[in-house]
């Protein structure tokens, strides 16, 4: 077990180095740099003096070739320093933690709702497998799964915010949020979060319930299910206690793999609802050529993705005694 962990960690570290190196090279070689990008946003007539340009280039470390700058970045990283954002003039770590809460608010509430609804839905689908009501609900769920989330976001905005006027169109809080009582603030936040959470949830709901159904399908054909039925247990008891428990393993693995998605947010959904989360930060930092922020976010997502994979494998072995990691 320990051997396996050490080997996997070493490989993950190597992958991380590779990823950051490639991404650093990629972004440093895109046309435009933080300075030019910022200037073009301000006033096209306002041109920086060449000596100022030189000076700033030096301060930001843009005068060095990119692989040297990567080395510097890596050195700082070893001292747990992700650098300061060029365009926002703040430490990258602060920026990321600040943007993390809005994204977590959406993704965690969506995850809870998904699990709460997907498990009963999946069980229902496997209990009524092949019946008319199951086929209709499964087809509907599949259509929902195929519904692109950004199209759904726009449709929801059109109907609930524009047509009916029930919910705010975008943003995370109202303009007068600060003057509200704490109860009103909560309600305000809830009203703003309702549509984005719906967009996050419906697709994964369909995916998870299909996933559960497919796994149940596999398990229900096993001999021990027949045994349980034969000894006279009720259908619900067989379904929940005997079958469903055995489908928990793949479900746990799936949880590990969705770990990065919890924090990454969705660029496009956050953009549509102008939600100040991680996805938007990523999008904006690419547009602004804000190298330290891009690198910080890339590092974070890569670590999470790799950790999620490792966790999934690890959990698999913990939950299922049949799996031995050393054998690989």
């Amino acid at each position, binding site marked *: 077990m320990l051997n396996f962990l050490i080997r996997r960690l070493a490989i993950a570290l*190597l992958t991380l180095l590779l990823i950051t190196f490639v991404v650093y090279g990629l972004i440093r070689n895109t046309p435009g740099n933080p300075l030019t990008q910022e200037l073009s946003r301000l006033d096209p007539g306002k041109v920086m003096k060449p000596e100022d340009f030189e000076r700033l280039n030096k301060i930001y470390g843009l005068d060095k070739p990119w692989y040297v700058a990567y080395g510097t970045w890596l050195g700082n990283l070893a001292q747990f320093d992700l650098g300061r954002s060029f365009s926002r003039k703040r430490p990258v770590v602060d920026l990321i933690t600040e943007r993390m809460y809005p994204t977590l608010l959406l993704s965690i509430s969506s995850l809870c709702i998904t699990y709460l609804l997907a498990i009963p839905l999946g069980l229902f689908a496997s209990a009524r497998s092949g019946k008319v009501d199951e086929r209709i609900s499964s087809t509907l769920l599949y259509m929902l799964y195929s519904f692109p989330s*950004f199209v759904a976001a726009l449709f929801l905005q*059109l109907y609930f915010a524009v047509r009916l006027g029930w919910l705010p169109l975008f943003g995370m809080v109202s303009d007068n949020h600060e003057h509200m009582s704490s109860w009103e603030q909560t309600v305000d936040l809830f009203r703003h979060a309702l549509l984005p959470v719906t967009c996050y949830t419906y697709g994964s709901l369909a995916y998870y319930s299909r996933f559960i159904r497919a796994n149940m399908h596999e398990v229900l054909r096993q001999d021990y299910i027949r045994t349980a039925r034969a000894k006279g247990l009720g259908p619900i008891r067989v379904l929940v206690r005997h079958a469903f428990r055995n489908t928990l393993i793949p479900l746990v693995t799936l949880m590990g793999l969705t770990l990065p998605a919890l924090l990454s947010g969705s660029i496009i959904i956050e953009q549509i609802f102008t939600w100040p989360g991680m996805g938007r930060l990523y999008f904006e930092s690419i547009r602004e050529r804000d190298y330290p922020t891009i690198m910080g976010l890339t590092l974070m997502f890569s670590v999470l993705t*790799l950790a999620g994979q490792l966790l999934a494998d690890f959990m698999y072995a913990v939950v299922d005694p049949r799996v031995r990691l050393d054998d690989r």
Partner: protein
Amino acid sequence: MALPIENRKSKIENVKKSAGFWKETWRQFRRRRLGMAALIFVGALTVTAILSPAIVGTRPIVCQYKGHLYFPCMGYFNPRWENPIFQIDKFRKRYPESLKAKDPASWAVWPLNYNDPYRRVYDNEWPDRAGNPTRDQGRPNTLNWFGTDQRGVDVFAQMVHGTRVALLVGILSMGIAAAIGIVIGALAGYFGGWADFALSRLVELVLCIPTLVLILALLAIIEQATIWHIMAIIGATSWTSIARLTRGEFLRLKEMDFVAAARTTGLGELRIIFRYILPNALAPVLVPITFGIAGAILTESALSFLGFGAPPPNPSWGTLLSAGRSNYQMWWLIFYPGLAIFFTVLAYNLIGEGLQEATDPRLREGGRA
């Protein structure tokens, strides 16, 4: 042993040949109503894409002008295919009046709907036809079935001509992705060892960076990205699942007897990989490719929606959506293209689902649904 050769031969011929893999798959697929409906939908979409200039446009499908036959509608596929004579004669893209004025004996066959995907139709451009409304006035009506956008360009025309981009993106970028994924997966799975280790790191590299971020970064490098660049970039970033699956298949297949047999006859490695193992590994890979087509179409419209799509004159469903976002009162800019994207993605997903059930014997008995 005792039978004479002729007799043995006839015996073999008498055995009914079992259906081949593809025939069997088709037989299984045909039984699935939703899958077939989706296949028909994609077929109809393809026909729409090919016939788009004949369905809606402002250039005649075929016309006789000064004694010669021309096909000006071909200009929608490629501006060079529109005969230069119409530019020399100063038609200024207004065919109905110019044809009549410059050659009274001319005749023309027109598209079903007179509207242009690139520009507004002006007053009396077509005899007695009012011009397209501009700004937020263009609700769907009898002239503009799906309404018009802010500039007065017909939405239906943009959607029909946008079908070309959508389908092309799906097929071309997935073709690229499939080529990359299959080659990388095959090499990693067949050679194993260090090749596998290095290629698996490459897969993880692409996997760990959010796809949209990677695409945006790559698009930033190419300053003036055309639709072809976008297709290539989508293809170059969406091959990981194909590679993983191909690798798995190769790991399994390379231990089989027929590979050992091929090796003993002294065939080259490449020949064994591509002629012997690959055809056997192709079936399971086909499913993620079909799902990938849906994904590629989605990515393209998302990029256009974010404003990173093909440059403006190219009509795209995603571009319409982003136009709708700047003015929510114009619901028709969001509603119709949104539905088009949804149904296309759904159709490809259903085909993929059907293929999965048709090629996986464990799922076969389920049938239908």
